[in-house]
């Protein structure tokens, strides 16, 4: 049985808590994420997705309730060392991570994390090489300044800088924002490979297509609360809930709902839809 990687127990987080500007980020959120799963977090702008993952990453402490990440627990009373413990085992690719590049060369930037952890030079060199290969970073640009790269290449370098730490949990906040479709597909492929290798992946996204095709779990946030957690199929079948939270099911699902007889498993990608329609049409021809 899969182990639990992350557990939230009635977790709430309030920004500027205790001041007149207090504003609620999330409220009373309870869920578990199994180890090695690929979870997508969706929801409208301002629904609390980033607040939620900041808690998973150990960057903020819950104002109420308890967060447990890989067996380390975090409450309002926890100290900085406990937060640092969680931060070390989680990798976090922020939105537009290329804004965090700072070193003179791509290589040095990727090596920043491992050097902070005090790994041996041999290990650092090996891991940096592996991480850059993992993201398919062009080999002839390892020694270039990050500022001379294209936006997409910067993104890859930044992601390599997170992967190099070999996190057991990898969080990505809208990793494909601003990438062309080819680059997005390659990035998702990489995430799939990491998922295969056993990394727990948590991805915030606005693309329901990606959720349908890659995630095995989906969490829907709405108004600071968890509205749904479960399999994407289940969510897509619940048209009412989706509409209420202003998310549209992916095209394949919408078409499937219109074209396929009720009760069939909804297709999660256009490929799947085409196959299902083809079988249906062929069966129809034979009937005539």
């Amino acid at each position: 049985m899969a182990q639990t990687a992350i557990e939230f127990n009635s977790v709430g987080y309030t920004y500027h808590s205790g001041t007149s500007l207090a504003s609620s980020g999330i409220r009373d959120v309870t869920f578990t994420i199994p180890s090695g799963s690929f979870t997508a977090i969706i929801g409208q702008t301002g629904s609390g997705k980033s607040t939620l993952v900041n808690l998973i990453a150990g960057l903020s402490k819950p104002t109420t309730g308890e967060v447990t990440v890989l067996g380390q627990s975090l409450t309002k009373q926890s100290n900085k060392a406990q937060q640092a413990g969680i931060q070390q085992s989680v990798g976090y690719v922020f939105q537009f991570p290329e804004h965090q590049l700072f070193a003179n060369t791509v290589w040095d930037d990727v090596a920043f994390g491992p050097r902070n952890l005090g790994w041996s030079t041999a290990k650092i060199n090996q891991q940096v090489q592996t991480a850059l290969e993992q993201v398919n970073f062009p080999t002839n640009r390892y020694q270039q300044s990050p500022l001379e790269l294209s936006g997409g290449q910067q993104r890859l370098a930044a992601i390599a800088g997170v992967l190099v730490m070999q996190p057991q949990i990898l969080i990505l906040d809208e990793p494909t924002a601003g990438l062309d479709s080819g680059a997005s597909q390659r990035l998702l492929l990489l995430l799939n490979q990491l998922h295969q290798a056993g990394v727990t992946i948590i991805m915030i996204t606005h693309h329901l297509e990606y959720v349908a095709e890659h995630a095995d779990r989906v969490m829907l946030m709405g108004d600071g609360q968890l509205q749904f957690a479960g399999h994407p199929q289940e969510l897509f079948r619940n048209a009412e809930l989706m509409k209420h939270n202003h998310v549209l099911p992916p095209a394949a699902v919408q078409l499937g709902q219109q074209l396929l007889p009720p009760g069939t498993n909804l297709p999660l990608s256009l490929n799947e839809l085409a196959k299902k329609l083809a079988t249906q049409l062929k069966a129809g021809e034979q009937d005539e």
Partner: protein
Amino acid sequence: MNSQLVFGAYIPLASPLHRLDARAKLLMCVWYVIAVFFAYTWWTTGWLFLALLAAIYLSRIPVKMYWRGIRPFVWVIIITAAFQVLFSSGGQTYWHWGWMSITSDGLVNSLILIYRFIVIITASTVLTATTPTLQLAQAFSSLLTPLKYIHIPVDKMALMLSIALRFVPTIMTEMHQIIDAQKMRGMHFNQGGLLARLHHVLPIFIPLFVDSFQHSEELAVAMEARGYVAGAPRTQFRQLRWKGHDTIAMVLMVALTVGLVLLRTYLS
């Protein structure tokens, strides 16, 4: 990720002070700061402090927020005050060692210095917390309009000021995010000696500078695309309006000053 609580940030509330004309508030703040330099005695400093408390009360902003405004300056204040104590002479000497001495005058001077620091910072916080930055810049350019006749580019200065103020919260938000990102890559700020800590500055400030340059470039392009011409005569969408309560506020300032002068002359 928008509203960082930082020194100088506008706090949208509905208070009597928020309703005042930005020009009135700017004038009052400058006036008050000048008045502070004329207060040495218990009575006068107390009088001005009382006025500040009234302003804080009228702003409806919790005192806690003002404390947050002063907190970043605490070390500067303490160090300046310490220098003042140790290196000024006069009056009774309590202790001395080489050039350094603690004298009664030194103590008094440093107390006045601390008082001025705190009062001035708080007064400017009252101004910036109750006035949207754009209005502040508008007030600034409106009050300095006479300077245009001696060819001082008041409008450009006001624009620079409003852009600078506008980007303070943006840059603070970005800085927090960059710090978070580097933390996730194993950087610990509060560890190591001075040198190690200085090393931590680069991974934060380099991305911050790069971002700021990008912002300014984008802003310049966007302004040009919308037909902004530097120095062209401009109208304002939101007009500043001087109302009755603004005049009352100015009268109160006059009363405050008269009070100050009376206390200075008769109770010293």
